[in-house]
């Protein structure tokens, strides 16, 4: 009970601190904050798979990248409406997740991990080589941000950093609440049951494959939503977004933060992103520092950042 209340308080404090960011933080930090929020959405979507359904995907960047490309392509074709642009990323990624999931979920453990990696790398190859659609290694650049209906009357647009940050925060909160509900729903409990003991779940009468596929698609869709936001935020979609290092980084974010908690991946995403962008712009030997940080985490905080809170 007290843990639950502590968590809610922590979350509210985090939310208030974040929401006020545009009021006091330097512009650059609002940018970093925006990137971190998008990355946090991405990380939460992976935690749904990893933490709740026990699916260690090493190709989650595929859905992030597909979402970014879908949103970018649509925006460059003069679609100027926020909701469709956000949804297209989620829908495109969900559509891609269906066949990938159907094939990958036949395997388990490291084999599943490698299959998802393989499919992500195939999509990466597609992004690099299907130049007529994706413009190859140059990527889609100059992706415009959509107008927000009614915002003009209030005197701001999403092209300003503050409002865009708040948009990302709103989407992140929405995703958080959605996943929070999902994981506590009968569906979420069923997933946990499958994670714990799939054979038993089958014996009880659950079509476990369908459940795993469903959650894989939902996870993919949310990663695609994050991808949509990333395309809008950065103004580009490049093959790098689908590369396996991005899958690795988001996996690291989830583990560093602590999986199976939703809060953990958010904290992990902030830590990893700030460490990566922040360290690389301020410290020369940033890779060394980041690497040492990860090693220290494994050794001293095996349950991630939330492990600290949970123990307290």
């Amino acid at each position, binding site marked *: 009970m007290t843990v639950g209340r502590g968590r809610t308080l922590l979350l509210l404090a985090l939310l208030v601190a974040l929401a006020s960011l545009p009021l006091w933080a330097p512009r650059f930090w609002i940018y970093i904050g925006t990137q971190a929020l998008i990355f946090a959405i991405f990380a939460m979507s992976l935690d749904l798979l990893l933490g709740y359904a026990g699916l260690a995907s090493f190709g989650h960047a595929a859905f992030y990248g597909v979402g970014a490309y879908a949103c970018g392509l649509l925006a460059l074709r003069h679609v100027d409406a926020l909701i469709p642009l956000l949804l297209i990323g989620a829908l495109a990624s969900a559509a891609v997740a269906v066949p990938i999931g159907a094939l990958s979920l036949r395997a388990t453990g490291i084999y599943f991990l490698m299959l998802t990696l393989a499919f992500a790398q195939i999509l990466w190859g597609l992004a690099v080589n299907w130049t007529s659609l994706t413009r190859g290694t140059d990527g889609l650049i100059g992706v415009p941000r959509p107008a927000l209906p009614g915002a003009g009357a209030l005197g701001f647009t999403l092209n300003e950093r503050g409002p865009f940050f708040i948009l990302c925060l709103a989407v992140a909160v929405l995703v958080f609440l959605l996943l929070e509900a999902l994981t506590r729903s009968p569906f979420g409990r069923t997933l946990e049951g499958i994670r714990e003991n799939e054979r038993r*779940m089958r014996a009880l009468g659950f079509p476990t494959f369908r459940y795993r596929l469903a959650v894989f698609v939902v996870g993919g869709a949310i990663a695609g939503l994050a991808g949509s936001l990333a395309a809008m935020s950065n103004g580009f979609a490049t093959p790098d977004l689908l590369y396996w290092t991005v899958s690795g980084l988001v996996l690291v974010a989830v583990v560093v933060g602590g999986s199976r908690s939703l809060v953990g991946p958010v904290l992990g995403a902030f830590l990893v992103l700030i460490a990566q962008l922040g360290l690389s712009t301020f410290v020369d030997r940033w890779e060394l520092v980041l690497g040492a940080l990860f090693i220290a985490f494994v050794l001293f905080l095996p349950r991630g950042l939330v492990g600290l809170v949970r123990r307290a």
Partner: protein
Amino acid sequence: MDLSIRGLTVRFGAVAALSGVDLEVPAGGRRALIGPNGAGKTTLFDVIAGEQRPAAGTVALGGRDATALPPWQRARLGLGRTFQRSTLFAQLTVAENLALAVRARCRAGWRFWPVRDRELEREVADRLETAHLSGAARRRAGSLGHGEQRRLEIELALAAGPTALLLDEPMAGLSGAERTSAVERLRALPREVTLVIVEHDLDAVFALAERISVLDHGVKIADGTPAEVRADPRVQEVYLGTA
């Protein structure tokens, strides 16, 4: 629900784990399956439950051919099972373990929103009571003692509301008192539930079973009432050890 197994053959590489096994259990029947270790009892359960594909033979559940059905569909036809080694949801609470099984019966897994289901909570509470696990409701299943785990194992299978139940050594590792209470629990089941039980504890077998089938080296060597089986010379030879 009646079970009708015909000509089941299962091979692991060159070894035949089961060869041409027939098994007929009428609805409401109480059947025990005995035989020495490695006789193929658990393999037979796996085939009936759909975990293992047979090389030949058919499985019919309630008169319906289920040979090609996946495990979860067989479960939905009314087949339940327990496992030789407890396979619980170790990280979940005892109550949540049972809730999963109840939801399986109600097919309530596809609800994406947290809902308070009082009926479900009441049933879970009742079942905890029945299994003498009320005090452990909020503990993780993995942290239970062996006896408690076995009780939960059986209750989990029952909560899914089976009309036919495969019990794989439910008494294994239990103390005398625990055995008695487990037998009581199974005897208290409604008459229409079919029971097939694999068990080494012959007291329990005779207390529960109306008929006994004997497996040895993947072949069914006897089938009949306890008295008939006891009298069967082949059973005495391979099973009771009188060479």
